[in-house]
């Protein structure tokens, strides 16, 4: 039986290690397409994809759009402002109306946890979760995995520490599930008020101090600190956060080995990450962005029913154009 992803990609928690490996392996041949002069293959020609973004997004939305266009799909972008959503239309009505136009896939970003699942349960089109509330952001998790695998050649046994606001982070959840399923060791580090109370039950090692996390880790995935966390009383100030948890050159230099630096963006330079770290020699932050397109191409391809073994062939077919 051929391995497949099923109808939707809603999160990494429901996937098996084999399914995650399938996506990462499928992304490999797609990386090269973006390096060509003519960045296009006909793989998804005739497919219609709606990018339904109920929350502001630059990186993820554009990355999906490039992935779709480079696979020759027809795409439509719907943002919450300037659409019927701003007139109070419910999520389910929006989705049903789109489906009535005979679309094939929906990429959804929404502020409510479970919104992608909600949609997937109600429409026949493939649904890809591009971030739902504080639940999951599976393609971000996948591109983080791909970037780590590129560097370490394997995910098995590597030590990755997620630093920051794990409580409110969908990126953190997708990383925790994806990394643990692929055999990596996962640490988390941040103020206790920004870690879920039940974090110990999620199969991760908790570090109270960032110095200990740096001592332990092969790679740090540094989360963005949202301004709202201060007004909601989770932590006192950005300044103190930077002092206690900020990743600085000085802190990294104390570690005995080089530590790979990831950040899902957008960065608050001088808050969770200092500029010389973000722009330093061990930062793979821009590689993450590049890999994002390849991973999303792989997900679109696999969900559309593409055979993994044909991904290479699909690439070749495009190359002959």
């Amino acid at each position, binding site marked *: 039986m051929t391995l497949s992803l099923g109808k939707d990609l809603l999160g990494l928690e429901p996937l098996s290690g084999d399914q995650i490996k399938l996506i990462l392996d499928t992304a490999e041949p797609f990386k090269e397409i973006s390096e060509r002069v003519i960045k296009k293959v006909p793989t998804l020609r005739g497919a219609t994809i709606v990018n339904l973004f109920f929350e502001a997004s630059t990186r993820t939305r554009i990355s999906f759009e490039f992935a779709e266009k480079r696979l020759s799909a027809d795409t439509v972008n719907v943002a919450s402002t300037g659409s019927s959503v701003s007139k109070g239309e419910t999520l389910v009505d929006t989705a049903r109306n789109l489906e009535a136009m005979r679309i094939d896939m929906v990429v959804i970003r929404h502020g*409510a*946890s479970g919104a992608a699942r*909600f949609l997937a349960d109600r429409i026949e089109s493939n649904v890809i979760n591009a971030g739902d509330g504080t639940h999951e952001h599976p393609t971000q998790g996948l591109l983080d995995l791909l970037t780590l695998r590129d560097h370490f050649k394997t995910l098995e046994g590597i030590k990755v520490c997620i630093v920051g606001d794990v409580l409110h982070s969908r990126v953190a959840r997708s990383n925790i599930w994806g990394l643990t399923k692929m055999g990596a060791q996962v640490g988390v580090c941040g103020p206790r008020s920004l870690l879920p*109370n*039940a974090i110990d*039950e999620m199969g991760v090692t908790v570090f109270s101090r960032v110095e200990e996390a740096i001592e332990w880790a092969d790679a740090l995935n540094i989360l963005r600190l949202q301004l709202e966390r201060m007004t909601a009383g989770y932590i006192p100030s950005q300044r103190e956060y930077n002092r206690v948890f900020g990743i600085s050159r000085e802190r990294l230099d104390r570690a005995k080995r080089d530590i790979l630096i990831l950040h899902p963006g957008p960065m608050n330079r001088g808050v969770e990450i200092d500029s010389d770290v973000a722009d330093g020699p061990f930062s793979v932050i821009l590689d993450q962005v590049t890999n994002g397109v390849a991973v999303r191409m792989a997900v679109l391809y696999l969900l559309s029913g593409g055979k993994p073994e044909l991904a290479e062939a699909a690439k070749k077919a495009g190359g002959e154009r």
Partner: protein
Amino acid sequence: MSRSVLLRGGRVIDPSQSFDQIADVLIIGEKIEAMGARVGNDAAGRDGLETIDCSGTVVSPGFVDVHCHLREPGREEVETIASGARAAAAGGFTAVCAMPNTDPVTDNQAAVGFISRQASRADAARVYPIGAISLGQRGEALAEFGEMVAAGAVAVSDDGKPVVSAHLMRTALEYARTFGIPVADHCEEPTLAHGGAMNEGIVSARLGLKGIPSEAEEIMAIRDILLARRTGGHVHLCHMSTRGSVELIRWGKDRHINVTAEVCPHHISLTEDAVEGYDTNAKMNPPLRTADDVAALQEAVRDGTIDLIATDHAPHHYDEKEREFANAPNGIIGLETALAVNITWLVAPGIIDLPVLIERMSCAPARVFKLPGGTLRRGADADVTVFDPSASWVVEPARFKTKGRNTPYAGKTLQGRATCTIVGGRVIHRSDA
């Protein structure tokens, strides 16, 4: 010649008289006339006697629900007093208490009178109004308890919201003593619970939903118990959901503080796992908790720490529940599933027996809220429930009398069903189980 009904050959259980045997119950007019093994033979041949064969079923004092939301006035498309009273009857309830979080809020004598009038027109289960503690349920100024009681209110509550001000709760408990009514509180510390959609724990961490910690309930529960100690007022704690709350109530009762407490059928049967998949029919406040909490609540029902079971029947429109989990309203319907859920999760596994179940669903609620009913004594109002404790049935919300369809039990097979509900000597519900 007054109308008479003979309930023949059932297992008659009346915990108020420690009675449990195969017997007949004779109702004449609106009152219980007699109960006993030979009553049927003696009554045979009475003019106009309607005999209901109760063999194989249980005859008990009518169930009383001290906590439901009937949505009228304000949201009549979701439920009305009439539809709610019919749902109650179908579930075996002969009387229910309607919470005052209507629109407008039931916070004055005219509003209370309106509910009583609508209830008498409904001609189904009795409906007793509960008045608001504070004007508009805004938590600022006391509503007129005296006038509301004169108009028929049996208790006061700001349910749906906690009484945030400890001072207001204290004065409410003191002021209510004049009228001998309980002050029913929805225990929720609002700054801890703020924005929460489910129990705080591993499931909320995984699903990325903001959690409501147990302490949000427990902090208010102990505050209320301490204020009851200070004031001598009767505090009734609504829908308790945690092991910690049970321990605090036990602490209060050990010290003879005037505290009573209720639990809902969903909190003794389901856990936070029901939220998996973002099922909005598993969203209620307080939220479904852990298996450990369920076990503690079941034990508290058994030993009486929790006095009674109440439904917190909360119908919502289909569209309101058909949305993102965090944005869906709290609450589920309960009147037509309460008996079966209680039998399935408490009686069938042997945690309590039928007399205790009837005590918690009929006698205790009537006693705690000082309502008529809860007994089959001669001369009492003939409010009687007949149910088949072994009937198994599949929950099909579309067949319910309530307008609500929001239940996490849809499609589940439950055990136990009301076959006949009698209010004031009149049969208001019949089914063949």
